[in-house]
């Protein structure tokens, strides 16, 4: 029977060509849109994880309440003991200490008096311990515009546009003014070794990066940091894994009454990323649903057109005694084959284009100049396991549904008037 149907479809290209093309295009668009949205949102989540949130993060209860203000006075003390415990309990996760801080950066003239100054948001990372992988995680080699990365104590990287605005030159001295962990005034000189550009306006306004040892000295934070970030072995954020880590740590350390007690939070609990993750989960379903509806309508119409074209054929088959149900089922089986063929072609095309964009990326940095949230400038698709099968759902379902709708007309044919219809 299937062989018979296939022969019919191959020999009568009018019956299969247009529906296969329509299904293939629809499936290709479904796959492409799915991989695009998964890629863009996933990249954005990854960027946030690497720069600010980690997959999980340990802070103090007090710090958590006012995290936006980067309160260094509510930092974690005895951070080396906490990180040792984390490494022992969860060795598969990479744990790194960071200090995020705010303040002013002052540039002096030849007399040592203020020439220019501006507000900064600083990140202190472990430059010297190469095992921490922090330089690679922040992509410092690639975002370095001028100069070199800090290698000696008292060196600093400054955002390129901020440096240009303040007239900061490579190897010049700048002064950081802020508050120590104990509230005292922190004033420290740094030597600028390089300038960086993230390509993200929110970060390029006034960010600086220093080694964590220098930040500890400047902010009086011996054996302290305000954040411990954890990165699971996966290249993407796994909510389930992060939740397990969080529950395991918090059940051991929970003490909500102590503002200095450590608490673990997940990526989804920070920077409104939870809604982005939920969106990513729901978006694939929404896309599939929209394509099923749109393509069903398109294929219903195609089926109607085909039905009209095959009006005579169906009439003849009925006249020679074929049952209406058998004709209806054979047309559905035909549409299944068409849907399958179109879906295979569409998935292959969609995945090929997705693979190309995943490898090369599309550069949107010029239109992202004024972005205020952490979004990458180059967008890439991401081929996930579901991209391989997601296209088959609308491809098969819509084709079969379209045929089922258009084929209802078979049952309306009156056997008695068939010969009259055929004569005309």
């Amino acid at each position, binding site marked *: 029977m299937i062989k018979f149907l296939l022969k019919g479809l191959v020999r009568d290209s009018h019956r299969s060509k247009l529906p296969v093309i329509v299904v293939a295009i629809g499936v290709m668009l479904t796959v492409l849109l799915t991989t695009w949205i998964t890629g863009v949102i996933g990249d954005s989540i990854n960027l946030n994880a690497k720069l600010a949130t980690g997959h999980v993060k340990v802070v103090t209860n*007090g710090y958590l309440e006012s995290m936006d203000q980067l*309160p260094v*006075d*509510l930092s974690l003390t005895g951070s080396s003991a906490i990180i040792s415990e984390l490494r022992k309990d969860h060795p598969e996760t990479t744990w790194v200490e960071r200090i995020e801080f705010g303040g*002013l950066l*002052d540039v*002096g003239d030849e*007399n*040592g*008096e*203020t020439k220019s*100054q501006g507000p900064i948001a600083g990140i202190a990372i472990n430059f010297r311990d190469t095992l921490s992988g922090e330089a690679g995680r922040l992509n410092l080699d690639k975002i370095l515009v001028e100069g070199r990365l800090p290698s000696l104590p008292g060196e600093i990287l400054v955002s390129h546009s901020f440096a240009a605005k303040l007239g900061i030159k490579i190897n010049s001295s700048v*002064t950081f*003014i802020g*508050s*120590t*962990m*104990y*509230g*005292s*005034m922190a*004033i*420290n*000189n740094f030597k600028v070794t390089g300038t960086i550009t993230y390509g993200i306006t929110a970060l390029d306004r006034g960010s600086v990066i220093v080694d964590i040892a220098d930040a500890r000295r400047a902010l*009086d934070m011996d054996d302290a940091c305000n954040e411990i970030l954890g990165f699971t072995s996966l290249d993407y954020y796994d909510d389930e894994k992060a939740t397990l880590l969080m529950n395991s740590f918090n059940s051991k350390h929970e003490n909500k009454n102590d*503002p200095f007690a450590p608490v673990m939070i997940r990526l989804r609990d920070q920077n409104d990323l939870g809604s982005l993750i939920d969106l990513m989960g729901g978006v694939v379903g929404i896309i599939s649903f929209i394509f099923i509806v749109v393509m069903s309508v398109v294929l219903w119409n195609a089926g109607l057109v085909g039905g009209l074209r095959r009006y005579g054929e169906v009439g003849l088959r009925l006249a020679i005694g074929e049952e209406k149900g058998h004709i209806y089922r054979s047309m559905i089986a035909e549409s299944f084959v068409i849907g399958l063929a179109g879906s295979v072609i569409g998935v292959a095309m969609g995945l090929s284009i997705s693979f190309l964009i995943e490898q090369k990326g599309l550069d949107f940095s010029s239109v992202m100049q004024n972005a205020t949230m952490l979004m990458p400038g180059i967008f890439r698709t991401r081929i996930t396991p579901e991209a391989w099968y997601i296209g088959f759902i609308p491809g098969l379902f819509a084709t079969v549904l379209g045929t089922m709708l258009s084929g209802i007309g078979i049952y309306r044919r009156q056997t008695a008037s068939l010969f009259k219809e055929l004569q005309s």
Partner: protein
Amino acid sequence: MRTTIFLLIFSITASMFAQPSGKELMALIDKNLSAKTQVMSAKMVISGARGSRTIEFSSWAEGDKRAFTEYTSPSREQGTKMLKLEDKLWIFSPSTDRIIQISGQMLRQSVMGSDLSYEDMMNNSDLTSHYNASVSGTDTAQNRRCWILQLNALTGDEAYQVRRIWVDQERFVPLREELYAKSGKLLKRIELSEVARIQGRWYPMKIVYKDMLKSGEGTQFNIVTLKLDEQIPESTFSKASLK
């Protein structure tokens, strides 16, 4: 004769507690607190999230335009100097050998993590030339009868647009103060106590500042020594004195 004496005592007492106008009350406060120059050594006990710290310093001020402060303790702060000239402030830090200028909105930031801003710290201005005043009622503060003085800023430049001051009815010295933003939000609450007689004026030697926008118990400001209307050498208010 007895009637005359009674009437005399009554009229003197009545005049003592008669409600002065807002302007008169401001002038009486200025007479106590506002001096041509102030030279003081003081301690600040700052209560923060991680306990309290004590900072010691000496300061020289001339009106509300010029002031110089040198921190003497603890060692991390020792040698840090601040110079205020008009609306500009310079900070010298010996560890960096830099003179850093602070201006504009930065002047309203906290000094050394305390509940005082740079403006609060170096302000020695009189009330009369900056505020309109009215007496809004009476109350008791520190077991003393007080007038409640309501001040409204004459210009929009003042950090505190509205001030409510509880003024001792006998000594004309503030015992409590509330500082408000233009929006009506309470920014700071100040308690002034240990009022002492200094060179014929009443002066509070202990002041507790509470920044209402910060957590913590506030900052206690204790004046150790105070000299008013002393001659201050001109060189004190120059950038050369910072290094």
